């Protein structure tokens, strides 16, 4: 396979991904996630605080929070982080709840 054909295949793949992604979607903002407005009920606030703590400790330890991402991939991100950062199951659940209040 020549370099041109390889580049073409990669370009097609990337273009397809972008087109599929182009549908309207709810965005989660990492910075926003760290500054959630006060929740209306206490248990939810506790979840958020706990999720914020885990986010700061486990995710921000290595990298800056991405500025925004679709809520449709939040579960995949958390599972990826569970493996990479060796999150406990409880931390994984809290983090997922934090990203999807």
């Amino acid at each position: 396979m020549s370099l041109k054909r390889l580049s073409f295949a990669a370009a097609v793949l990337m273009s397809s991904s972008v087109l599929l992604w182009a549908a309207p979607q709810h965005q989660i903002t990492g910075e926003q996630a760290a500054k959630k407005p006060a929740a209306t009920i206490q248990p939810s606030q506790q979840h958020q605080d706990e999720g914020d703590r885990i986010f700061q400790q486990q995710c921000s330890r290595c990298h800056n929070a991405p500025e925004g991402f679709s809520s449709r991939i939040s579960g995949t991100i958390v599972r990826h982080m569970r493996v990479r950062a060796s999150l406990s199951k409880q931390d994984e659940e809290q983090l997922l709840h934090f990203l999807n209040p």
Partner: protein
Amino acid sequence: MAPPLLNVSISKLAWSVRRIIFAMVMLCTVQYGIAQDTPFLSGGVGFFTDTNGGKTTYYPILEPLLAAPIGSHFLVESRAALLETFAPSADGVYDHTHFIGLTYLQGDYIVSPHVTVVGGSFLIPFGTYNERLSPIWISNFQDGPLIASLGLMSTGTGTGGMVRGSAISRHKYSIDYATYFSSRVGNQQFASERSSGGRTSLYLPEQRIEIGLSYDRLLQGTHENFYGMHVWWEPKDTAFRLRSEFARGHHAQGYWVEADYRTQAFGGLDSWIGRIEPLIRVQQTFRRDTLFSDGLPLANTQRVDLGLDYNLPHNTRILTSFERQFSDHKDHNIWETGIVYRFLFPTWKGK
């Protein structure tokens, strides 16, 4: 700029690329029942330069990362590197080379709350740089530490299996672990050496301190042991990070200490001042003998890296640094500049 892990020819990549594209298409056809579990494509695209001895080399690079969950316990993830290098030759004419290689391709199966089994080609869990800091959208400096190759068995990847997870997780402390076995693989795309080892870390959330130990052993040719230790401290409610790592191999050893800081005093991290990130990294290597098999400098070396990064909006970073290296062979300066954009989006329109 860290050298690419795999140098492969295009012709030998063809079959692997076809298989990867086929696998990605197959993954995209999986019906994802949970809307949050859509596969994502992430990574970084960057343009770097380094000037050493008056000669400037240019590195456009793309590092895509794919993660695709299957069911509720399985995850397939992979990262690749596509690197072009434009370097001046002795007569001043620029030579052009390119590298394309898979950094890793692994399947993760979450067996229980404390155990995840990883199979395939994975990043060797030794120290912190290889697994955590090597992506171009994460690292503060363009090039890795001088000791980055110690304990990574030449390629940085193992082909085989790994067991990892959170051993204990409490509010006051947590302990995680990773242990692996890799077989020897000659395939250029998944090249690895026969080795075994692991890492364990203790994390104290209140103090924001992490202490970890690593060990691995080369199990082919001359069997060699590698030992590592890392200490990270990131004080709460500050944007200050102090990271350090020590590694000792059979022929050489060394350490690095890196600190970075962003002020929140002038409008927070998103103000134009808060986006400025000064950095410093100090590192030393020591040769234990003159056998050169580990990628470290041939002579004892000291190096100071002074950096100034700027975190632009929209996941973009500008990286600049000046490095002064002292060694018995020759002292020299390295100037580096670069820009990196990090992307992250779903690959498939979920339900």
